[in-house]
């Protein structure tokens, strides 16, 4: 197990390097000058040149990359071009918000998706199955942005049950924190839950057809026990992999949800950084997301090994 982890972590280094090179080149390919974006209405050529020099933006690209990389390995990801705040502290302040949102959304998605998926598979072909399928198709098709706006209009403007937007850290007020995150995580979670439902249903159907399930049935085991203990355990392998892959989906959804509900998280940071051509922040964000993906994939593999011992030999 330890050997697998070490091997994977070492392999991650060249991957990360490649990601940074690509991110660096890609953002330079973006049309639009960060200094002009920074200067806004103020476009005096002297000011523009002073800013360009201050942030070393007139150096050749490899020099800029080298400068960034050497400070990055020392743990310094630079400062935001827009507001001077160190990128690391910006990310450190935004990441927990998005992680909380993501975990809540994933929990909601798993509760909705896995339970309805199992029900639909067990009752295959029934009205329940058809209903669940229709519901999941609706869930996948509804744009997050639109659903978010509708929920704000209903729960915040009309009923006044929940705040329309904003964020309160759990350390300040846990109840208020959950109230602010309820709508965004429901919006995000419902879409993901719909995807999870379809995959769970498919995986369960595959497993339920297997010989050992028939054997279990023949042995006269309780149907609930067969479904939860024997079938679900095997069906969970692809579902767990999917959950980690959904991380990308969550991040994409979080970008939208954070815009609609004005949550100061990672997604909002990414969008604003790209629009402002805040290169240092974009680069920092890319690194953190890449590391996140690598670790999550590793985690998925390890979890699968724990659940399915046969994979240890693989």
């Amino acid at each position: 197990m330890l050997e697998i982890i070490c091997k994977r972590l070492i392999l991650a280094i060249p991957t990360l390097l490649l990601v940074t090179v690509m991110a660096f080149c890609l953002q330079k390919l973006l049309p639009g000058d960060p200094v002009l974006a920074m200067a806004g209405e103020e476009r005096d050529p002297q000011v523009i040149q002073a800013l360009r020099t201050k942030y070393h933006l007139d150096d050749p690209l490899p020099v800029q990359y080298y400068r960034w990389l050497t400070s990055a390995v020392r743990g310094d990801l630079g400062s935001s071009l827009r507001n001077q705040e160190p990128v690391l502290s910006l990310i450190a302040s935004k990441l927990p918000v998005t992680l909380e949102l993501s975990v809540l959304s994933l929990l909601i998605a798993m509760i909705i998706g896995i339970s309805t998926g199992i029900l639909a598979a067990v009752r295959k072909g029934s009205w329940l199955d058809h209903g669940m399928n229709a519901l999941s198709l609706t869930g996948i098709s509804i744009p997050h942005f639109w659903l978010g706006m509708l929920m704000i209009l209903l729960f915040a403007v009309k009923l006044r049950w929940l705040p329309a937007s904003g964020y309160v850290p759990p350390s300040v007020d846990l109840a208020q924190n959950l109230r602010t995150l309820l709508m965004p995580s429901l919006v995000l979670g419902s879409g993901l839950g719909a995807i999870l439902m379809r995959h769970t249903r498919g995986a369960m159907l595959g497993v339920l057809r297997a010989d050992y399930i028939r054997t279990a049935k023949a042995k006269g085991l309780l149907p609930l026990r067969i479904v939860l203990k024997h079938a679900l355990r095997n069906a969970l392998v692809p579902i767990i992999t999917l959950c980690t892959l959904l991380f990308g989906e969550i991040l994409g959804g979080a970008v939208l949800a954070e815009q609609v509900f004005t949550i100061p998280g990672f997604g909002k940071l990414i969008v604003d950084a790209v629009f402002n051509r805040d290169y240092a922040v974009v680069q920092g964000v890319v690194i953190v997301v890449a590391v996140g993906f690598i670790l999550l994939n590793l985690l998925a593999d390890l979890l699968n090994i724990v659940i399915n011992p046969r994979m240890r030999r693989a």
Partner: protein
Amino acid sequence: MKICARFFLGLSGLILLGASGIAQAETMLRVGLSSDPDQLDPATSRSYTGRFVFNALCDRLVDIDAHLDIVPGLATQWSWSADNKALTLRLRQGVVFHDGEKFDAAAVKYNIERDLTLPGSTRKSEISSVSSVEVVDPYTVVLHLKNPDAALLSQLTDRAGAMLAPGATAKGNVAAHPVCSGPYQFDSRVQQDRIVLTKFNQYWNPKPYHFDRVVFLPVPDASVRLANLRAGDLDLIDWVSASDVGTVTSDSHLTLAKPTPLGYMSVVFNIGNGQNKPTSPLAADARVRQAFSWGIDRQALNQVVFAGQYTPANQPFTDASPYHVPLPIPSRDVAKAKALLASAGVTSPLHVTMVVPNEPVAQQVAQVIQSMEAEAGFDVSLQMTEHATLLSRLSSGDFQLALSSWSGRPDPDGDIYSFISSHGALNDGRYSNEQVDKWLLAARQINNQDQRKALYTNVVRQLQIDMPVAYLYFEPRIFAISAKVKGFVPYPDALLRLADVTLSQ
């Protein structure tokens, strides 16, 4: 009996506790901003919404009133020398900064010099006419100028006139923790989430300021901003879309405030910018540009896109400004447009491309123009471009036509000089007319309003002929306010002034 007495004693105690709780309840105003302000350093700040925060946080040397006239701020009196090259300011006494440092002439000298020398200072060009600052006595300061600058005083009503505490500023970190002398002091900030200011107890004029706390919350999406206001999570919001005005006016819990607009939207023609000099007839012949302008029905544009809430424009000076030139808004004249195209030898339809900011309202404006121009002899292709890219293209001259807006300034110089004078930093189309340059420079160097007005009138009339820019409309930044908020007065610069604003519970 005993139990009863204890019960009532306890109850009255609870009521008293509750009452004292109410009496001590913190008053807080929550303001929804259309974007997150950038750096909270007046010398390097560039965002519009940053000015909202500075207005509450920092006193300026002078201010404007609701009629765009200059009124005292930290300077109580001012006078120009006979040659208009020295501005003497008499300063208010008894003012302290939020950290207790005293405000005096030395502080003014420090701030002006900082704006002029700080690397990356975006105030430099606004006050570049200042050559030196002389401290005459602790409460008198003289700004010596390289050349007369009629717009200088007006620049000092905004960020260039905002005074930071020299001691605290010299330590650095201003952008994250500014120390000024305004009615509210900086408390905390979470990027993209909130900026919190608290009441400054030693403020020299405490009476009109009623809140213990003012919180600025950036909510970029206009519909979400309005939803927050309607849900009671915000008390006042900036920049309501014209399409939402109906929602606000039909809601009895809300009121609407529409300041006289200073900012405008225009179509800029590329006349001579770019490595490959533009060769389109639009660049070469003023008649073609005039034809384009005649093709636009500005009233219809206002009705279709802005529900009639905006004001059609044919010049950069808003009709509330004393410098507004009384020229009628041209009504659309397709026959005239076609005749002008024919006289310029252009076979219509003339294919042109317009660069448009990638946002819904600008897109609608562009589409309306596109369909109007189709009848007037122009085949307009639209290129939707995101903001940062648009700025680069304007700057490098990579455009034929561009939809371009300006937030507006109280002094006319700020609305025209950089855009129209031959070497102006914002003259994206590279329009150049020697006579216009002379008028603009003269208007900059005279302090007499009538003489300046005559010069600007000349310029505006000449622009109707040369047509480097087709002005479309003035854009009011509309506020929506909870009915609980009283005393809000909209100013033409569309900033929030908190004096006399109260909130009923």
